[in-house]
Structures are given as C-alpha cells and as structure tokens.
C-alpha cells in the first residue's frame, strides 16, 4: 500500500514536497492520498472533490493512458469573497521560491506525470529546443525555435504552458509554421489558428493529470471551464459516432472526436472572444483579428509593392 511507503521515507523534511516526490506518491499511493498529503503539508483546507459523471481518462481525449494517474478533479470555489483582501488583485501570479536547476527539475518532473508532458519533453529533446525557464519579461512564448517560460509562473503553471509552447516549437522546427510572406491573408490566419488550437488541445489533454498532482496551475492557460466546453463537444461527437457505427474502435472514436472538437469548438475560441490579446484593452482583440492585422502589417510595409 502506498501510504506505508510514505510513512517509511526516512529523513524527510517537513513542509513542501518536491514534484518528484509527489509523482512517486501518485504512482504508489494514488491521487487521493497525494492530494490529502499536499493539502496537509500546505496547511490548506481540504478542497471539495467531485468526479465527472464519467471518469475522464486521458485516452478519452486522444492520449495514451498514463501510469496510475486518475483524473479526480478539484472543484474550484465559485463563491464570491466575503471580506475584502489587501492589495489590488491585478498583478497576476507569483512563481514561488524555486529558481535555477531546482525550478527546471520541478517543471520537468511535473511534465513527466502526463503523456502530454512527456510529449512536450520529447519535442524539446528531439529538436534541442532552448528553454528559458525564468524569463524576465512579459508573458511566456515560443519564438523561432526557443521557448521562454515566465519566471512568475509556478512550476505547475509553467508545465501547462510548456505543453502549449512545445506544440509551436515542434511546428516551427518541422518547417510547418505558417509563412506570413508566402500565404494569402485568409490562409495565414487559418493556419496560425490551427496551430494554436492544437496547442490548446495539448493543454486540455495534460490538464487533468497535472491538476491531480495538487500543484498550483493558476496562470497556466487552462481552466475547468475550457475543458468543460471541449468535452461537451467531444462527448456529443462520441455519442454520434457510437450510434452510427457500433463497431468503430475506441481509438478511432477518440481520434475523430479529438479532431472534431479541436477544429470546431477550440478553433472558435480564437474567433468568438474567448481568447483575446493581452494588449487590446477594452477592445478585446481576437486572434483572428490579430493575425489578420499581423499579415496586413507584413504586406503593407513601407516600400513594399
């Protein structure tokens, strides 16, 4: 039983537990025990726990099953605060105390918990992608084959962001990135958003396992609500396919549902105002608008015919 292993760990410092240790516990004691341990160590109130009506497994969102990881999800509190808090609540997240190699290791350990995270690490290794894990600046992003992870992100949030940016790095290194000079405006916008949608689906697929570790993922770009919207479309398509062809394999159903949900629901988020640029202010600039303007800027440079 995993809990016995936990009790026998010698010389264990009290307080914060490292990501490696959390993963070990997850694989031996299960997520419920890990969640309890993390909560106890942090002195936090034990969160409400609820299950999906059906257990959501990675395989259901097009991913291979991962170790013993289950997908219990912690319900987020939706009640408004009763009392005022100090400060302004407008400056975003804070990355915590880990820096240097310890931070890199914590992020990579969290990535190793999920198939999507392993995929992201594989991308980084395959293409020798340089990663700045403590980027001091604005946001986190991929740029011409390098990944910049903002230092203000917690290791959990950084892992979620890595899943997203690894998609862009893979596209770039594979030579499949949208070419702003060669493509027409509409095709450029479509191709850019297709890559973004795939990157978001990667995050959705890695979300349940990463969250189940009990690590802080605030600011990591994925929420229960986005996943809820994705799964609603995914499951509707699944039911439709199962009804149409009872002999269709689970793998084929999952694959088709993933593609369908990505190309309809997730793609719509870049057009309907769900995702907007961080610079647009009250204008709420969608990414379909942004990529169009980006193309316009490239093709209307001074001196260009």
């Amino acid at each position, binding site marked *: 039983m995993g809990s016995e292993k936990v009790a026998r760990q010698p010389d264990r410092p009290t307080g914060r537990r490292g990501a490696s240790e959390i993963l070990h516990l997850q694989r031996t004691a299960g997520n419920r025990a890990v969640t309890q341990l993390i909560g106890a160590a942090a002195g936090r109130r034990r969160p409400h726990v609820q299950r999906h009506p059906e257990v959501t497994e990675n395989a259901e969102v097009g991913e291979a099953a991962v170790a013993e990881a289950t997908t219990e999800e912690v319900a987020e509190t939706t009640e408004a605060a009763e009392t005022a808090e100090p400060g*302004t609540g407008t400056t975003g997240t804070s990355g915590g105390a880990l820096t240097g190699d310890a931070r890199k290791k914590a992020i990579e350990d969290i990535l190793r918990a999920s198939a999507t995270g392993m995929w992201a690490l594989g991308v980084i290794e395959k293409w020798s992608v340089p990663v700045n894990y403590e980027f001091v600046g604005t946001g986190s992003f991929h740029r011409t084959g390098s990944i910049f992870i903002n230092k203000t992100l917690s290791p959990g949030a950084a892992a979620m962001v890595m899943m997203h940016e690894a998609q862009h790095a893979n596209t770039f290194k594979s030579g499949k990135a949208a070419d702003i000079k060669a493509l027409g405006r509409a095709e450029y916008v479509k191709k850019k958003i297709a890559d973004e949608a795939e990157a978001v689906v990667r995050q959705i697929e890695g979300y349940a396992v990463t969250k189940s570790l009990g690590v802080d993922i605030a600011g990591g770009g994925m929420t229960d609500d986005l996943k809820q919207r994705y799964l609603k479309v995914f499951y509707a398509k699944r039911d439709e396919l199962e009804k149409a062809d009872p002999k269709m394999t689970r793998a084929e159903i999952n694959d088709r549902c993933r593609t369908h949900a990505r190309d309809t629901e997730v793609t719509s988020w870049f057009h309907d105002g769900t995702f907007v640029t961080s610079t647009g202010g009250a204008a709420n600039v969608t990414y379909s608008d942004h990529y169009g303007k980006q193309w316009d800027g490239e093709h209307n440079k001074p001196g260009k015919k």
Partner: protein
Amino acid sequence: MSREPIDPGAVARALGEPLGEAVADGQARIDPVDVPGVEQTIVWRVRDELSDHPWQVYVGRWPDGDIRILSAEQEAWADLVAAAGGARLEGADEARAYVATFLEVTRGTMVIVAPIKSLDELRWRPGSDDEEKAKTALLDDPPDVAPVSEATDDGFHVELTLVVDRRLQRNSFEVARDGEIKRSSFKILAERLPLPIAR
C-alpha cells in the same frame, strides 16, 4: 512640462532579450503615458503588435535616467512617483483617473484589467455551463458597480469596479494628494464569468 523622449536603446536594454530586439529594430512602438497629477512624462508604453502573441509592457524613467519595468511592479510605481516629486492631485476626478492609470500600468502583462461603470460594459463570450450560471447569478442580483471618488481629510477615497480576467471585483483606495496609495483592498463580486481570457 518635460516631454523629453525616451531612448529606445535604453528601453531595449531594460527589457532584455528577446523583447528588446523588437524595440531595437523598431517593430515595437513606444508611446508616452500621461499620469494624472504629474506634469512631466515618466511612464511609457512599449507595445509590439506584430509578433505572434502581441505584447505590451510599461516602463518608467527615474530622474537619474534609470529605466525600469513597471508592469506588475507596484512598488516600482510608488518609487517612481515619489522620485519624480510626487503627484499633485487637485480633485476627486483626477484622483480616480490617477488610480485607473496606476492599475493599467502595473497590471500583470497577461492580466486583463478594465474598470467598468455599468454591467452593460461587460463583453460576454460563450461560456461553459458553470460560467453561464455565474453570469446568470450576477445579472439576477446585480451589484452597484458605479465608481466612487470623494475628497477626504488627507486625500481621496476611490472605489472602482474592475474586470480582472474572468472575475468582477470592487477595489477601494485611499490616495494621498501626492499620489501615494496609502491603502488598497478588493472584494470579489463574482468569478468564473464567461469573459475574455488573455493569451
């Protein structure tokens, strides 16, 4: 009023790589930002709209020429305003504008912060079932979101309702006439709302 332009090279160095490149090659725009109650220009907005994910950051210039990032750095803002000799806030409306500028300049770079005067200003987008429930609950029992700004014995009391990503919150400030923000607090009015997410 000092409107001395800022040196793009110094801004590029303050931002570091790779964002500094966009400043150095002219892709990013640098625009002065007026701070209510402060005569000289001490804050600039640096914005690159042409990268894959557009980015924006605010920088300040200290009297000794030092340039530092102000985004998500509220202490730096306080230091900058004090170093510039402080603000001269002459009325409640100016104090409210000062607070609004402070919030925009010091917001996290990936955090949407937008003051609203009415719930009609909220830009709804399609939401999950839970988000739609939160929206319905908010609209069924709407809070008073009108801004408040009034003079006090030692400055001004300002209250603003803010959209902060997917939540709505009421922020309160006690601001001295010289721009020092002596106290700030906030109360969450609603969260998990179907509002835009910055990426």
